[in-house]
């Protein structure tokens, strides 16, 4: 496992940043990294290795907040996830939007729905609700109860 050329290169360049590599198959690789090294590793994938940023998915789990940054290498049909685990009480991570615009909206969305703070984001305003929700209420967190659930 971990013999894919891109994994070898990543391990070589960012020794301390990489915590775990899971290779589901040749086309699906999940690399769990230290949140501090996210800008460097994402920058390497985007600028040097020719990866395209697809989207990022935030998940609220028992471990805190997890984000999968999905990158695609189109010539090989490879999806590589950069997986970070953020602190439950103070979820924050460096924004990637200064590097590529593709992450601008999704970071605003994750900020709005999960309350994850993206440091140095150029414009971290609400994307969807345009400010007509209460501050500090994040509907995609697991503890959020909707109207119908609360009546039960």
């Amino acid at each position, binding site marked *: 496992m971990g013999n894919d050329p891109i994994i070898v290169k990543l391990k070589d360049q960012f020794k301390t940043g990489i915590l775990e590599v899971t290779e589901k198959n040749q086309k699906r690789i999940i690399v769990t990294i230290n949140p501090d090294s996210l800008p460097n590793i994402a920058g390497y994938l985007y600028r040097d290795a020719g990866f395209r940023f697809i*989207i990022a998915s935030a998940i609220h789990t028992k471990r805190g907040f997890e984000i999968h940054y999905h990158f695609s290498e189109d010539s090989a049909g490879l999806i590589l*996830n950069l997986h970070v685990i953020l602190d439950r009480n103070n979820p924050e991570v460096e924004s990637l939007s200064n590097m590529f615009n*593709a992450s601008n909206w999704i970071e605003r969305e994750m900020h709005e729905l999960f309350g994850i703070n993206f440091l140095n984001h150029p414009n971290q305003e609400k994307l969807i609700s345009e400010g007509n929700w209460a501050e500090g209420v994040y509907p995609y967190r697991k503890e959020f109860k*909707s109207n119908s659930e609360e009546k039960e």
Partner: protein
Amino acid sequence: MSRKTLIPIGPYHPLQEEPELFKLYCDGEIVKDIQWVTGYNHRSIEKLSESKTYEQVFFLVERICGICSTSHPFAFANAVEEIVGIEPTDRAKYIRSIIGELERIHSHLLWVGLAGHFLGYNTVFMWAWKYREPVLDLFEMITGNRNSYAMFRVGGVRRDIESDKIAAVRKILADVKSKTDLLTGAVMDDPVIHARLKGVGILTKQDVIDYGAVGPTARASGVAIDVRKDDPYAAYPLVNWKVITAQAGDVFAKAEVRLLEMYESISIIEQCLKGLEKEKEGDIMVKVNEIPEGIGHGRAEAPRGEVFHFVVSDGSNSPARHKIRAPSYVNIATFKKSCVGQTIADATITLAGVDPCYCCTERMAVVYDVRSGEKIMNARELIDRSISRSHDLMEELKKSK
């Protein structure tokens, strides 16, 4: 600094009849900046999906968009099948690809028609929509529905395409092909359309990479990405076809890519029909007993570009997290590049050029109002809120004048 005039398109688009708001900041006739506002029609499908079983999610994601209503179940099926680790039978693969390509044909015809309508060229509009009709009839014949086909499930498809229907499908397809020839000729050789669309709304290769744009929007700028080729799924590796690209990046190039893609789609369907005849009838399902714990990535090439579904399973009968990225979510953001510097008249067709699908972006939020901690919201209040929102917007627009 000179004063800028704000020209609103929306909150209800006059031509596309969908809720969105483009704010064009103009200096004279030239668009200097553009902002986009959404959120008028949120359905929270990602959150809803967590409360549905895997079988039910197919019907839910099918309703994300009425035009590409097969792309989302397609991507979701790919994601769940990755978690389970199964592959559908060849017959099911052929049927999936046939549905996917028929959808591409009807969606591209719809776009060509709308683009003509935007230009004031209503002949193209009427032709394209007339020729789209037999495709919808075809859908009704093989799936039972003109839209929202309900064909997909984990491990295969719900309905077979019986052998006695294949001849009828071929006949309608041949008819669609000859009509497409007419339409393509009318659009590609028309000097007025050339004059109107060439050099308008140019998106460079670098912009496409920066914004992560996908589909015909990317392919018209010379970025040859197509999930069907790059990360093959369903029957696409079993048939011969090529990825259509253009280099100019303007609206004409986007129209060219879409028109030529329809021929590839017709060719793919013809090959799939041949494939169907070789397979045993009725062999369309692989039985799946349970969905194990794990994560799955599903991709499908929708008419507008790559649809991406990310499913996290905790071993229960519904997804623990289901992230959906529709193509317009990344394509609409490119307006910041393609519209700025255009005249207002060109901006409208540039906005239509990526074939924006607002429902693609309207899936996220919850309708419950939680301002001041209260969570009450009945139909009357929703209507009141919508009215007050319109008033706020009108006030805002008045102020900025």
